[in-house]
């Protein structure tokens, strides 16, 4: 069992959240093991999303070299698939990716850190 780090060592509250005597105005803290597990989960997810992002962005100019249709075909009116992706498609992709990544990261942090029982120790029957 990894011991909980007292709030003063958790290092989380910024300096402006301390009272004039230097004590932190919070009872929130994180467990090192939980933070480490969360960090690893987030790192895996972030690099996964980044790999997808790089592949899609590189594919837009890259397909020009492999497929004539990509830059010479006509998809919307007079626009080639390459132009459509560069002018509209990539922006939609960026936004969808951002929403998905942020939603996942928020959910991971919400579930793995700061569980409700720690917000209210009395609910677990702990001594005050």
């Amino acid at each position, binding site marked *: 069992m990894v011991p909980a*780090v007292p709030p003063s*060592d*958790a*290092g*989380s*509250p*910024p*300096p*402006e*959240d301390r009272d004039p005597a230097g004590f932190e*105005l*919070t009872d*929130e*803290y*994180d467990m*090192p093991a939980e*933070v*480490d597990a*969360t*960090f690893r989960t*987030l*790192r895996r997810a*972030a690099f996964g*999303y*980044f790999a997808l*992002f790089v592949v899609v*962005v*590189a594919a*837009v*100019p890259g397909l*020009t*070299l492999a497929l004539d249709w990509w*830059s*010479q075909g*006509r998809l*919307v*009116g*007079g*626009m*080639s698939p*390459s*132009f459509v992706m*560069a*002018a*509209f498609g*990539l*922006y939609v992709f*960026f*936004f969808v*990716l*951002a*929403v998905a*990544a*942020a939603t996942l*990261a*928020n959910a991971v*942090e919400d579930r793995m*850190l*700061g569980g409700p029982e720690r*917000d209210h120790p009395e609910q677990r029957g702990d001594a005050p």
Partner: protein
Amino acid sequence: MITASIIGLAALLLVVLGIALVLQPRGASTLDFYLAGRRVGVVTNACAICGDYFSAASFLGVAAAVYVSGLDGVWYATGFAAGFIPVLLFVAAPLRRFGEFSIPDFLGRRLTSDRVRLTAVCVVQLIILSYLVPQAVGSGITWELLVGHGMAGLSPYATGVAVSTAAITALVALGGMRGTTWTQAVQFLVLLCAFIWLTVAAIGSGFHYPEAVDRLNEQPLTNPTATEEGQWHLETERDRIDGEDPATFGEPGARYGSLGQFALIITLIMGTAGLPHIMNRYFTSPTGLAARMTTVWVLGLASLFYALAVLLGTAARSLIPDAAAEHAWMEELTVGGVLKVPEHALLVLGRVYGGEIGLGFIASGALIAVMSTIAGLLLASAASWGHDVYERHINPHASQRQAVWAGRGAVVLVAVLSAAVAVGLRPDSLTALLPSIVATMVTWAFALAGSALTPVFILTIWWRRTTAPAAIAGMITGAVTAITMFALGTVYGDAGLSEMLLTPTIVAAPLSAVVTVVVSRFTTTPAELDRLWLKLHGTAADRHTLRLARLTITGVTGRSKEEP
């Protein structure tokens, strides 16, 4: 002289200075001066980041790059917008949770090293200067076209540089981050309105986007070139991918070969996470969660903005030849219906659709873009000199008042230096060499940031083993490699492999990362790594802030959120 435009500009400057005076920090606190008290909301901060980020390169430069080189210019828009994906995935939330004042401060604290802080200050100042100069160039170009004459014996170009720099220096020195945040947010909304108005006007006049691209593809892409005798003529761009065939607007190859396209995109994507004026804004968010969601908003707004910029660059290419035949005032600006200076594209569209008022509106937008970015850069520079150097090293016992005044002094010095460099450059002498001088110069700043700072930044946040000596080695390697490649690129031109020399991040960033990892293996990590890691990746401070906010709401309304 265009009276309506000048009156509009004067009114704009007065409004900006008024906001700075009203919102100036009441107490002499560095937290308030540099970070607006860390109380900037998600949407406000997203708009302010957009105002900060959308510089002359975005407002004038992207449309200009599309105008002059078609699809190859679109990569600027793609890269500028895509740069926020790495920021979202790797930087925004942990950076805010660590909660310092600037990038050098963050790196110095995380690696518990003053030498890291000072090395980062040098890199940050180089990036800021590289970014400030093209903004000042953009303001000079705009003034030249809008007003057409100088003041106090200066040329029109130099007057534009001096006036915009002086006005924004006053704003930043008086208003600090709080005043700058609100003016940047408002400035972004003005820029977006300008784009939307131009788009509606163009479509209303019969512009059909897909048909325009199709029509432009039917003929070779041509651009004006000046001879040594000063005579202008149209020259066909050759396709750099398919050899000597003529390039066309809607296909890649007008400006970059295969390698150059990848190198440009990677340079812009990697650069954003290392831009000091943008990263500093994340310290103003109340929580890491707010910083992350701010980035999602920024991506949405940036996507809309850049999609419109590409559309307008295409509209300018399609519509200006016909307009040039109808309007006598365009004669001196064009050669065979094509603009001599591509940065004039949106300004000309503004005058075509809105007369003097339309030109004044777009020109004001251009100056707003310049000023809001200059404001962010000057604040980042002030935080770096005033906080990271003066407070940490020169006068560690400085009072808050002294530290704020040190920041204000730094603002003035950096502003004067960048204006002097910009006046020394003549944009029309470089236009024939580069696709869009403003966008290209900003790309250099992105290359330096992406090569020297971003790899070290990401490793410092996501790899526990990163050490102080390794970070210093990584930053120096990235910066020296990028600068050396630039220098070689200017000598050896921009064809073939040398395309990479002008957008060097594709080489310099991996090199910087490898050096950082290797040196880390042979050196020791900071002593209090566990405590630093909790601060960086824990959410206790976020929960604490949210709890306080809930308690405040409960106290004000008398009801808790959970109550019906």
